């Protein structure tokens, strides 16, 4: 059977729905040692900032049941190095790029969008609204203030060349994810990526100190999948025409099915890249086999299936 795996994010077509999650695949180079990086839908690159950032002190991670806590704090070389060194490498291997941007303050987002969308070969821009705003000492995130989040999206959209999709990356631990999503779409986001890590903490029972430096970290991995699927489901219900990149704990092809049935058009593999460096290729294979076994001709037919009855049942 010839299963049609193609999906669309706004005006951009991807060969299949499996992408990487920002910050969990670098810019593709390391994982390309384990599978053909051009074979998956796209690589979402680690959020890039205007300037180099050294990130947070160690320890930066702790394992938790079916998940992990981390605080890398946006470490990266800055947008210049990214555009000169990392992006060209990815494109040279035939990879498709969703470039995640993180600004310190609204204006930086505009500058980042301008530079990134001017670069050759970028497929889409993802706006990281869920990491703490480095320009705000209180540690507040853009998603904590719906109007701030919308302002960032509006700025990015207006600095991004037309036709290039802008995806707003949301968090699950917000007062009302549907309200946030709606505000981002009204600010002209072409799609939504959801969800980012969820704030949490672990105590190291050997030292009796917080297990990651600074106390709170971001929880990711299969543990948070029900939170993520719930967000995707509710947002798709409210905004059925807006493409969603679903993520949070994807480990198998069946998890891709779960996210797509809840309403995602594409699905990102994050933390599981750490535990299984060939995960993206395996997940894509398992997903394809699932579609074939169910006799579904098009991957897109799955999108939102859990909102209807009797799809492919």
């Amino acid at each position, binding site marked *: 059977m010839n299963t049609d795996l193609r999906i669309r994010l706004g005006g951009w077509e991807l060969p299949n729905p499996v992408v990487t999650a920002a*910050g*969990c*695949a*670098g810019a593709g180079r*390391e*994982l*390309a*040692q*384990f*599978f*053909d990086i051009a074979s998956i839908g796209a690589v979402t690159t*680690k959020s890039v900032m205007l*300037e*180099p*950032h*050294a*990130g*947070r*002190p*160690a*320890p*930066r*991670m702790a*394992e938790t*049941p*079916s*998940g*992990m806590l*981390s605080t*890398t704090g946006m*470490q*990266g*070389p*800055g947008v*210049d*190095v990214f555009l*000169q*060194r990392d992006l060209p*490498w990815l494109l040279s291997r035939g990879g498709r790029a969703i470039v995640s941007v993180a600004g310190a303050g609204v204006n930086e987002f505009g500058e980042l969008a301008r530079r990134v969308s001017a670069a050759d070969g970028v497929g889409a821009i993802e706006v990281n609204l869920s990491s703490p705003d480095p320009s705000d000492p209180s540690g507040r995130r853009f998603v904590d203030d719906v109007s701030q989040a919308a302002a960032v999206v509006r700025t990015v959209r207006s600095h991004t060349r037309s036709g290039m999709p802008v995806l707003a990356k949301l968090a699950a631990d917000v007062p009302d994810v549907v309200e946030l999503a709606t505000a981002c779409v009204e600010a002209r986001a072409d799609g939504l990526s959801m969800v980012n890590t969820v704030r949490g903490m672990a105590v190291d029972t050997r030292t009796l100190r917080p297990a990651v*430096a600074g106390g709170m970290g971001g929880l990711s*991995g*299969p543990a948070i999948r029900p939170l993520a699927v719930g967000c995707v489901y509710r947002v798709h219900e409210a905004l059925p025409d807006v493409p969603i990149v679903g993520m949070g704990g994807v480990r198998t092809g069946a998890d891709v099915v779960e996210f797509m049935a809840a309403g995602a058009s594409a699905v990102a593999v994050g*933390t*599981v*890249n*750490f*535990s*299984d*460096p*060939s995960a993206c290729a395996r997940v894509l294979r398992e997903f394809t086999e699932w579609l074939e076994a169910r006799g579904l001709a098009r991957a897109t037919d799955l999108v939102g299936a859990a909102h209807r009855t009797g799809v492919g049942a």
Partner: protein
Amino acid sequence: MSDNGPVQTRCPVLNVRRVDAYYAITVVAPGIAERFRSGQFVSVAVGGDHSSTLLRRPFAIHDVKPDYGGTVEFLFSVRGTGTAWLSERRSRDLLDVVGPLGRPFPLPRDPVNCVLVGGGSGSAPLFPLAQSLRRRGCRVDFVLGAASADRVFSAITARRIAETAVFTTDDGSFGTRGRVTDVLGGVIEDCRSDAVYACGPMPMLRAVTAVAGGHGVPVQVAVEETMACGTGVCMTCVIPVVGEDGITRMVRSCVDGPVFRGEQVRFDDVGSIPFDALGAPGWKGSSAARAAESARDIA
């Protein structure tokens, strides 16, 4: 996908042995064995496909043999859930192993005198290193330390491979009572050492680096930072390291290490972000530094 990069394989366990306070697991992994250079490590998935322990466990490669197309051995002590699970493996079980990972020990071009310093299970990577050095005609001396006698690592092998082997234990139950650094200076003098290689906990590496520096001898250290991925994508394993250009960067100990030149590691600042590190809050990026950065690693 690459000929000298790491591979991921499901390898059969050949055997699991107890060695004093340690377990040794040998797996059949030709792809890893053929690529291996000493100082590199493997990362092993633990707990099975439906385990709640998501992350791999990193272990230094202790030995590589040509049997069965290529076997790889690593040693470990039971510390938590992952190592407890590993200690229960039996022959023919399959392990999901990724490797070889990390930068190997640089080897001297000339047949010089080398001291190899290890603490506890951290000594593992020194044994294949000793073999490589011997093959190049280097003189090898060992200084191995541990908490107690049963934690001293492969004393017999060390004695066999090396010109001399000195042991220290915290409780004096074997060799000299004390720490490796108490005896290291004497060994460097006695053996006219040209280079030091060290593996073990961070405080030991720092002390070894200080002693070697005091004797004007270069030192290579292999660090053991907590690692989520081991392949370079997660950025959780970083430590502050000074580059050739004098700029301190937070580098990934899994792919930029685990082997570093001792004097380049800012031991005092491990666990923090030095104010002058590239991109630290206090850092003022000079355009020169930025240009250097973008020139770096452009393939």
